[in-house]
């Protein structure tokens, strides 16, 4: 039994198709992140799961129950919002107990749950304050608490950290991870921040245009992106793309006048292809003064950006810009001629027409 199961879900606003025949199964206790650029439908999907949007077709199952047409409060979910969405006129305690009172829970049960949430989230001293008197981090904690007291199996997070500054964001990120470990609930988490996705998720669903492009664990998403979009969306700086063709029965890649040996490629059968794209992440390229053994390309240094821990080297390669992550070893002046060593085993090869990984 899946914890959350989306079956052939689609959503149209008039003639516009927002979510297209979508399928998604989330396991019990799993942390799934919906990741994508704005307008990709990730928040929309989450709102559908919560029952805040009526879907056009398909089914939604939560904990073995078809909840497609159930009210949000009857679905066994708790939700945390980007803007916290705390009721400003109620105290923190009021915010936590509002839903429980509506549900008609007995007083001592409500007390017990509030006490537990307050302990887990360390918001005990704030219980009698109004949201206006809290800091951003505290507010988000209360918002999580409101989901927590509902005592549900599935937590839905809608970009919960994007209103916080960078420092608080990383703190709360760790805290959410800890919470997940401690509670073991199923969590579906929407974000556009790939760092959040990569650090929090058991599995990431990368979305674009109302379609899940790839659903996999962070390692696979990062190292074996299924198509050009996922490859380009994940990773910063983005993956370098070399446009060329696969030749010699797929054993080599022709880039301009250069021939790159593909024998070490970790993927499917390549074959000859008229148009292909070779994707290499900045850290999978090395810089050498002379041509190294194995596949390599000559290039010219343009800019050397020192980031502290390492450097980003921007090079010119047959008129194309390429970025390489290198250890900091003194600056390479602009115009220096170098050779790039390519780690083909970690590269991704795409068909240029279908944009799919080979």
């Amino acid at each position, binding site marked *: 039994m899946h914890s959350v199961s989306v079956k052939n879900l689609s959503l149209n606003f008039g003639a516009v198709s927002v979510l297209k025949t979508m399928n998604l199964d989330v396991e019990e206790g799993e942390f799934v992140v919906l990741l994508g650029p704005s307008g990709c439908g990730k928040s929309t999907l989450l709102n559908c799961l919560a029952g805040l949007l*009526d879907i056009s077709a398909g*089914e939604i199952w939560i904990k*073995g129950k*078809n909840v*497609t*047409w159930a009210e949000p409060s009857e679905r066994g979910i708790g939700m945390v919002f980007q803007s916290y969405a705390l009721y400003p006129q109620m105290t923190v305690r009021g915010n936590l107990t509002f839903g429980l009172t509506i549900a008609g829970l007995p007083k001592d049960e409500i007390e017990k749950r509030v006490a537990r949430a307050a302990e887990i989230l360390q918001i005990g001293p704030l219980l009698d304050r109004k949201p206006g008197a809290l800091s951003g981090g505290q507010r988000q904690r209360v918002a999580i608490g409101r989901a927590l007291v509902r005592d549900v199996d599935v937590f839905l997070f809608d970009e919960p950290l994007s209103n916080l500054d960078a420092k608080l964001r990383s703190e709360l990120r760790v805290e959410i991870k800890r919470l997940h470990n401690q509670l073991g609930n199923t969590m579906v988490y929407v974000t556009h921040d790939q760092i959040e996705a990569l650090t929090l998720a058991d599995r990431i669903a990368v979305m674009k245009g109302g379609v899940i492009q790839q659903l996999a664990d962070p390692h696979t998403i990062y190292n074996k992106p299924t198509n050009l979009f996922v490859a380009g969306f994940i990773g910063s700086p983005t993956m370098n793309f070399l446009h060329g063709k696969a030749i010699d029965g797929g054993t080599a890649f022709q880039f301009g006048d250069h021939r790159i040996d593909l024998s070490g490629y970790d993927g499917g059968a390549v074959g000859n292809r008229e148009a292909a794209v070779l994707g290499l992440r900045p850290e999978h390229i090395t810089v050498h003064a002379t041509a190294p053994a194995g596949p390599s390309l000559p290039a010219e240094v343009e800019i050397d950006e020192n980031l502290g821990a390492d450097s980003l080297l921007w090079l010119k390669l047959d008129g194309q810009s390429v970025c390489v992550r290198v250890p900091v070893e003194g600056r390479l002046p602009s115009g220096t001629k170098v050779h790039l060593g390519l780690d083909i085993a970690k590269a991704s090869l795409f068909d240029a027409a279908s944009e799919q990984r080979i």
Partner: protein
Amino acid sequence: MSEVKRPNPLFRNLTAKLAASPMIFIVLVVFIGSTIWTVASSFTGIKTLPIFTPQEFYDNWVGWDQYVRLWNTPRWITSITNLAIYGVLYSGFAFIIGFLLAVLMDQKIRAEGVFRTIYLYPFALSFIVTGKVWAWILNPAFGLEKTVRDLGWASFSFDWLTNRDMSIYTVVIAGLWQGSGLVMALMLAGLRSIDDEIWHAARVDGIPKWRTYLQIVVPMMRPVMITIFVIVASGSVRVYDLVLALTQGGPGNSSQVPSMYIYEKLFVGALAQGTAASSVLLLATAIILVPWIIVEFGKKSRS
């Protein structure tokens, strides 16, 4: 596993639909139903008893007769001419006065709140009160005329209130006093909504202030201005109680307005004549609304 059927969308969020039903009732019955009934009945000969069924309408149908009679009635011609005079002068002057006051108010002046309170307070008063006050001020025997004469200008004459040719202009004066503050407040809100950057840019470019207003700010405010114009102009079509309190439509019939004509016909046994006159006003309003609808429609199609 249980099969869950899609609920009938008609009953989804039923409470919301029930709660909106008063609004829907009012729109359907009052706004749509009444308009249709008024226009349709203007093509009949009904006098006191309203009719509803198609058969009744068919039996009483007289075509354009009511309109022919309407435009052959001198009193209606006077009324509609007065409305045109009032509408054009009131809307025009309210617009100019309102804009100039708003520009003055926009000069980072001290005590802005005091001035705004003064300009706008007449708008809080009813037309009846406005009419009574101005009737008193313009009273030739005791008001302005007498005051100026007492000061020594014995031949001074300001008898508009009792002058057949001028009485409608007293309505304009009183109307402007009552309503121009509203235009000022709306214009000021429009001016304030313009980005300060525009002013900075104009100053950097060395454009004089008056040119910035005329050539940059006014064009930018065009949608706001059209909205204000529609509000002011469509409001002026309704003028009734102001005339009633100020001149009672007199002297004679000289300051009659269509609303008075309609009111009388509706309630003294010439129902269809009244609804025909109402339909003319409806048409006039529709013409005023056209620019607004174009703006609103243009806004939607652009975005």
